[in-house]
C-alpha cells in the first residue's frame, strides 16, 4: 500500500537550555492509506511533538530543523502558512487528549462543528447545520439534535470526545491524528471510543496516526506500531510482530511493564480488622440562597467494607462512582451522613476535633497528582518533616527522620534540600509516600497514586508500595480507576458504581469469576485484554 503521509529524517530542535538539543531527531515514518499506526512512547519521548510537527503547530521556539513531511506530494515542512491552513482540518485533522478543554466552553457543539465547513467550504447555513447533525449521528452521540445546541460543559467526557471526532471527520480528511484521545476517559468509555475510531476508520478509509502511551490500546487497535524514546524512533513494524517479538530493549521493557491481568497468588494476612466501614453514606446537597437550584448527589450509599490488618483493599470505579468521596470519608476530610468508620477500636465519628487531629497520624493519604500535591515553595525534606513537627517532634530529629524516609522510598537522602520541581514525576510520588509514612501510620489511603505516571514508573511505584507494606506491616486502601493497577497489589477489591459497592471479595475471585454485570463490563473494557491475559499466562521471555 502506498504511503499517504511520509516523514523523512525529521529533526525538530528544542530551545537552548532544554534537557536535550532535539525534540525529534531524524524520525522517518510512513502512514499508509487505511491503516492505524500507533506511535507509542512515554512522556517526553517526542510522540506528541511528531503530531504537532506534522500540522506545524509546534510551540514557539521549537522549529523543524531538517527533514521532509510529504503529504499528497507536498512537503509540509516547507509549505507556507496559508497552505498549511488549507490542509489543517481538511486534509489532516486532529483530535486531542482532553475533550474538556479542547472545545471552546462558550460556543455550542453545533457551532464548533459547523465552523469546519465555514472555514473550508462555501456551504450555506442550513446545509452546514444538516451536515453537522449527520456527523453527530455518525459518532452515535445520544440525542444529536440536543447535542447540536449543547455547550461542552453540558456533555459527559465521552460525549465531548465523540463531538471532537465528529468535528475532525467533518471534511473527510485523508489523515486523522489522534493524540492520546482516550487517556482522560473512563475504561468503559475508552472501549467505546476506540471501537468508534476503528469503525469509522474502516468505513471511511481514513489513515489514522494514533498516539498513545498504553500498550493495551496498541494491542486493541493498531495495524502497525512505531516506538519512540527520547525523540528517536527505536522500532517500527506490524503490530502483532512488535507485540509478540519486540526487538529493541526499550520496547521489550515497555511491554514487560504492561501489567498482567491475572491476580498474583493470594497472600496471607491477619483476620483482625484495622479499618471497618459500616453503612457509610454521604449525600451532597446543593442548597443555596433562597432555596434555589437544589441538587442532591448521593455520592456514597451504604458502603460496608473491612480492611484486615496488613491487607490491601482496592476500591475500583469510574469517575463519579463515589470512590474519592469514600476516601475522604475514611480520612475524615468529609463527615459521612450515616454509618460508622472504625479505625481499630476507635469510632472516628465519636472523637472531638482535637482527638481527631491527634489520630490523624494513624491514617495518612497519598494523593493522585505528584505535581499539585507538593508545595512548590518548600524544600522536599521540610515537606516530609512537617507532619512529625506538627505532632510535636523537634526540628532536628524530624529532619533526620525525613532523611531515613528518603532512603526508605528509594530517594537519595541528600536530596532533602531540593525543591519539588527538581524531581521527576515518579520521584515526587515517592516524596508523597515518604510524607505519608513520616507519621508511622497504620493505614495508608492512596487515591490514584500512579494514574499520572508513565507505565514503567507506575510499575516501580507499585512495587515500592508492595515492599513497604511487607516491611512496615502497613494496611493500604488503594483507590483506582484502573483494574490493571488494582490487580497488581490488592488482596481484596471492591467495585463501586453510582456510590454503591456492587461487588467485593478477594481479587483473584472477582477477576476470574465476576458476579456482577458491571464488573464484567469493566473487565471486558480493559484495552488489550486478550494481550494482557496471554502475557500473564505465558510471560514473554525477557532479555
Amino acid at each position: 500500500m502506498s504511503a499517504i503521509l511520509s516523514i523523512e529524517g525529521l529533526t525538530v530542535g528544542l530551545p537552548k537550555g532544554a534537557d536535550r538539543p532535539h525534540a525529534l531527531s531524524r524520525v522517518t515514518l510512513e502512514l499508509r492509506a487505511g491503516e492505524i499506526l500507533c506511535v507509542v512512547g512515554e512522556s517526553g519521548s517526542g510522540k506528541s511533538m511528531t503530531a504537532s510537527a506534522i500540522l506545524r503547530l509546534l510551540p514557539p521556539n521549537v522549529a523543524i530543523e531538517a527533514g521532509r513531511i510529504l503529504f499528497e506530494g507536498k512537503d509540509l515542512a516547507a509549505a507556507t502558512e496559508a497552505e498549511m491552513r488549507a490542509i489543517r482540518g481538511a486534509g489532516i485533522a486532529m483530535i486531542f487528549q482532553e475533550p474538556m478543554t479542547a472545545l471552546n466552553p462558550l460556543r455550542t457543539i453545533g457551532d464548533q462543528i459547523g465552523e469546519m465547513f465555514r472555514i473550508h467550504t462555501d456551504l450555506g447555513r442550513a446545509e452546514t447545520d444538516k451536515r453537522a447533525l449527520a456527523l453527530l449521528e455518525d459518532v452515535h452521540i445520544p440525542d444529536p439534535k440536543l447535542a447540536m445546541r449543547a455547550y461542552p460543559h453540558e456533555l459527559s467526557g465521552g460525549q465531548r470526545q465523540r463531538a471532537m471526532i465528529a468535528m475532525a471527520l467533518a471534511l473527510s480528511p485523508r489523515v486523522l491524528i489522534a493524540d492520546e484521545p482516550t487517556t482522560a476517559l473512563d475504561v468503559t468509555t475508552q472501549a467505546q471510543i476506540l471501537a468508534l475510531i476503528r469503525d469509522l476508520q474502516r468505513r471511511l478509509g481514513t489513515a489514522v496516526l494514533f498516539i498513545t502511551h498504553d500498550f493495551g490500546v496498541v494491542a486493541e487497535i493498531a495495524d502497525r506500531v512505531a516506538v519512540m524514546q527520547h525523540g528517536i524512533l527505536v522500532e517500527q513494524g506490524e503490530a502483532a510482530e512488535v507485540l509478540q517479538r519486540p526487538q529493541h530493549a526499550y520496547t521489550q521493557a515497555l511491554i514487560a511493564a504492561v501489567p498482567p491481568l491475572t491476580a498474583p497468588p493470594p497472600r496471607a494476612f491477619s483476620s483482625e480488622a484495622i479499618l471497618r466501614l459500616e453503612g457509610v453514606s454521604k449525600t451532597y446537597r446543593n442548597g443555596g440562597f433562597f432555596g434555589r437550584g437544589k441538587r442532591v448527589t448521593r455520592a456514597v450509599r451504604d458502603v460496608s467494607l473491612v480492611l484486615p490488618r496488613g491487607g490491601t483493599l482496592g476500591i475500583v470505579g469510574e469517575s463519579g462512582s463515589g470512590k474519592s468521596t469514600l476516601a475522604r470519608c475514611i480520612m475524615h476530610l468529609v463527615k459521612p451522613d450515616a454509618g460508622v468508620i472504625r479505625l481499630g477500636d476507635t469510632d472516628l465519628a465519636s472523637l472531638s476535633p482535637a482527638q481527631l487531629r491527634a489520630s490523624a497520624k494513624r491514617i495518612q493519604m497519598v494523593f493522585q497528582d505528584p505535581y499539585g500535591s507538593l508545595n512548590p515553595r518548600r524544600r522536599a525534606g521540610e515537606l516530609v518533616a512537617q507532619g512529625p513537627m506538627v505532632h510535636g517532634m523537634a526540628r532536628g530529629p524530624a529532619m533526620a527522620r525525613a532523611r531515613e524516609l528518603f532512603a526508605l522510598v528509594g530517594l537519595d537522602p541528600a536530596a532533602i534540600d531540593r525543591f519539588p520541581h527538581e524531581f521527576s514525576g515518579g520521584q515526587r510520588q515517592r516524596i508523597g509516600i515518604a510524607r505519608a509514612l513520616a507519621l508511622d501510620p497504620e493505614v495508608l489511603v492512596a487515591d490514584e497514586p500512579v494514574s499520572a505516571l508513565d507505565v514503567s514508573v507506575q510499575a516501580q511505584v507499585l512495587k515500592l508500595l508492595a515492599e513497604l507494606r511487607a516491611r512496615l506491616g502497613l494496611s493500604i486502601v488503594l483507590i483506582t480507576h484502573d483494574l490493571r493497577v488494582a490487580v497488581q497489589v490488592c488482596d481484596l477489591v471492591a467495585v463501586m458504581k453510582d456510590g454503591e459497592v456492587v461487588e467485593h471479595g478477594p481479587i483473584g475471585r472477582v477477576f476470574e469469576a465476576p458476579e456482577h454485570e458491571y464488573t464484567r463490563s469493566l473487565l471486558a473494557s480493559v484495552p488489550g485484554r486478550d494481550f494482557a491475559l496471554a502475557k500473564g499466562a505465558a510471560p514473554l521471555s525477557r532479555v
Partner: protein
Amino acid sequence: MRILSLAGRRLAASLPSLLIILIGVFLLLQLAPGDTVDALLAQMGGGGDAATTAELRRFYGLDVSVPVQLGNYLWRLVRLDLGFSAIYGKPVSTVILERLPATLLLMSASLSFAFFFGLLFGVIAARRVNGWQDSVISTLGLLFYATPSFWFGLMAIVLFSVHLQWLPAGGMESIGEGFTGFTRVMDIASHFVLPTLTLGLIFLAIYLRIMRASMLEVLTLDFVRTARAKGLDETRIITRHVLRNAMLPMVTLIGLQAGTMLGGSVVVESVFSLPGLGRLAYEAVVQRDLNTLLGIVFISALLVIAVNFLVDLLYARLDPRIAREGS
C-alpha cells in the same frame, strides 16, 4: 428564562446590602461633630438663641433619639421620599436630579472609552507580546496608572484649553449661547472630552493590563490549539475563540470598579467644575447636609447595584456556564 431568574435573585440579594450601606452611613455621620442646624446657623452668620436652635432641630426632626431618626428616615425612603435639604432649600430628590445627568454622562462616557480602548490595546499588546507595540502600550499603561487624575486634568486644561484653545476648560455647556438641537449636543460633547479622558485613562490602563494578561492565558488553552488544527487563521482565532473567553475577567472588573469610578468623579468634577453628584457629595459633607448626603449615598448605591446587575446579565450572556450553575 434562566437569565431572568438569575437576574431576579441577584437583585433580591442586593437589597440587604443597600440597607446595610444606608444604616452604616447614617450612623457614621452621627459621629461627626455638629449637625445640619449648626451648619445652617454658621451659614447665617452664627448666633441664634437656644430657643431658635431647638425650634430648628424640631423642624428638621433632629430632636429625637438617633434610632428614631434612622427609623423615620428609612420609613420615608420606603415611600420614595428622600427628605428636604436644609442648605439648598429644596427637596433632596430635586437637588440630586439636577446633578445626576452630568455624573451619568461622565461615567458612561469614561467607562465606554476605557472599555473599548482597553480591549483594543490589550489585544494588540497580547498579539505582539514582547514586541515594540507591546512595550509602548504597557509603558503608557503604567504611566496612566501611576499619574494622579487631577494632575492629568489640570495639564489637559493647560494644554488643550489654555494654549491650544481647542476645548473648553470647564462647565457642562456654554451658558448664554442658547444652543439648541445638534449644536447643543456637540457643545456638551466638547465639554466632556477632557473630563472623560481624565477619568477614563486610569481605568483604561487597568483594563488593558487585565485584557493583555487574560488574552495571553487564553491563547495557551487547548481549544485555541484545536482552532488552529481546524485551519483557522490567527485573526479569526482571536475574534471567534479567544476574545470572548478573555473578556470575562475584564467584565467582572467593570462591576467591581463602578464604585471606584463614582469616587474618582468627585476629583474630576471638581477640576472641570462639572455640576455632578461627586461635587454635590463633597459640598453636602462640608455643610453637614445629612439628608442630601444620605440621598446621594442611596442613589450612588443604586447606581453601583444597577451597573453590577447589568454586568451580571452580560456575564451570564457571555458565559453559558454561569446561567446553568444558578438554575
